[in-house]
């Protein structure tokens, strides 16, 4: 590959890593700062992606309508797609939070698994919603006409990184505020926090909503990059597990760690893909993704036992006062 090819590959790689970093940041608010064990990321991923898709594509008419079913199609610009994704995810998080946030942490985890599965099942089986298993295709990309399609990725990279930075800064700001300090206190010792009169439930709900909105944005970014989505993308494997590993590897409770974890794990993931496909004999090549996942799974276990704080560890000072 000549230099141009390498750069193009790197840009595409960085876009993926950036999208995952957005998810990791969202998860960090819920788990890293509030201690909510959300194994249902795939659900918000799915809702975010589909919401943005439905907002930005037109409702199929005429002959087209025989092949593609959508419950609505607003044909609005990308920015509104992202906003819509965030808002809908936030709203769904609110609905979910009501019954589940008072539960014990492991029950919450099971509930989130259930939610993600249900979301996927609904999108898969209720065809009128978003075309069922065939999914939606031809999703528009922002600023599409501006450059030669071969160079479009550069623009998208800038968009993704810009959004990532904006999210990072907003979270950093929020965490250093009094609101953020209460979250930390809840994670450390819920009972003590409850005794000091804070409405634990409200804070957890806010954290859940905030994190989910960010995940919705991630879903939208994903959808508009791949231009096509279908329910089988949003599996627990791909949609949830890999983000958890990224956060644990990078350092939960640390926003820089979340971003770093995303990039590092994505690096291992893609390099692993290349190495494995080169090393494996022909008959096993189809199994390569599973071998990758196996390695990542083992990596998670090693991290949990030997370095649960991840690469960067938790952020120590989070108060503006102390800094």
């Amino acid at each position, binding site marked *: 590959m000549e230099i141009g090819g390498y750069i193009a590959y790197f840009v595409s790689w960085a876009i993926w890593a950036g999208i995952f970093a957005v998810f990791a940041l969202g998860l960090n608010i819920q788990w890293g700062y509030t201690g909510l064990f959300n194994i249902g990321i795939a659900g918000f991923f799915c809702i975010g992606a589909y919401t943005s898709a439905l907002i930005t594509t037109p409702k199929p008419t005429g002959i087209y309508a025989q092949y593609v079913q959508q419950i609505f199609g607003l044909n609005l610009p990308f920015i509104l797609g992202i906003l819509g994704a965030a808002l809908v995810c936030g709203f769904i998080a609110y609905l979910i939070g009501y019954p589940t946030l008072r*539960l014990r942490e*492991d*029950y919450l985890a099971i509930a989130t698994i259930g939610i993600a*599965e249900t979301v996927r*099942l609904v999108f898969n089986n209720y065809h009128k919603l978003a075309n069922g298993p065939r999914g939606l295709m031809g999703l528009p990309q922002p600023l599409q006409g501006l450059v030669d399609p071969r160079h479009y990725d550069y623009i998208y990279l800038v968009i993704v990184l810009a959004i990532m930075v904006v999210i990072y800064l907003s979270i950093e700001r929020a965490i250093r505020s009094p609101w953020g300090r209460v979250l930390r206190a809840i994670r450390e010792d819920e009972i003590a926090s409850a005794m000091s009169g804070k409405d634990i439930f409200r804070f957890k709900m806010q954290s859940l909503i905030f994190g989910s909105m960010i995940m919705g944005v991630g879903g939208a970014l994903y959808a508009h990059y791949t231009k096509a989505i279908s329910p089988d993308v949003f599996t627990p*494997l791909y949609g949830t597990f890999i983000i958890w590993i990224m956060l644990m590897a990078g350092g939960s409770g640390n926003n820089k760690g979340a971003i770093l974890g995303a990039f590092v794990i994505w690096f291992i993931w893609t390099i692993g893909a290349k190495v494995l496909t080169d090393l494996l004999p022909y008959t096993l090549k189809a199994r390569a993704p599973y071998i990758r996942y*196996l390695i990542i*799974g083992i990596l998670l*276990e090693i991290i949990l*036992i030997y370095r649960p704080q991840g690469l960067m560890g938790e952020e120590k000072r989070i108060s503006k006062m102390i800094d």
Partner: protein
Amino acid sequence: MPELIVYGIVLGSIIALGAIGLTLVYGILRFANFAHGDLMTAGAYIALFLVTVLFPWLDIPDTTFGSLSFGWRMVLAFPIVMACVAIAAILFDRILYRPLRMKRSGPVILAMSALGASFIIRMIVLILWGADSLFYRPGVLRPAIELPHEIKIRPDQILILVTVLFLVALLYLFLKRTKMGKAMRATADNMELARVSGIDTEKVIIWTWGIGGALAAAGGVLYGIDVQLHPGMGWHFLLPLFAATILGGIGNMYGALIGALVMGVAQQVSTAYLLPTYKPAVAFMVMIIILLVRPQGIFGGGRA
């Protein structure tokens, strides 16, 4: 409808094998073993290996028993598979969960470790067997017996019910009559006091994993006999397993059994009104309702 209920009981009894193991582990170790469903998967696939690879190689005959869909190979494989997964479950605990327990890691970290273990098991299955659905005996006719009320039931399924009943009865006797069984119940009640009384709680933990793994493996094989094998089958069972466990009260073996039967019937009956693919969602709904209304389970005494 009666047929749905009958099949629901069959399905429920398979779920029960997993749920009982899960509730035993949950009760003693206080941790949500997200890998329990995949222990069922492991059992099913190890049996597949034995029945389709090893035993043919050893020239063990393949003839089926009457109208059942399996023969000596499966009968031989069954206890072997239970033993293998029992050992595997114990190993997972020693290697993955125990170090975290020693470090006093919180329940979430332990659950995360179990989640990782579940993926590891699933990936191994996918690597070795691929993603397609498989059968112990492909292309077999499955004749059904007619019962009153137009209920059809297959001979396989009758045997599944008998097997589950047998295993549950064995477990009951073990817990009620043997020293280790009582020690397990004591440890589930109060681990600290068990230690204070001189009970070797590490040994109790090993036995718990062994029994849990063995029962899960049995459930996986029975499911494979009744329906099919596919790599995601364990994950597919996870929600019903946890729903059954929570419904029956964590740590309550009889509760888990009843909870599993309820879940099985509920899921099957739901297919009269919803698409079958929504079954996990039904399990989830039931579970959410229980968690909101009575989190300590129907029989109480479970830890809320």
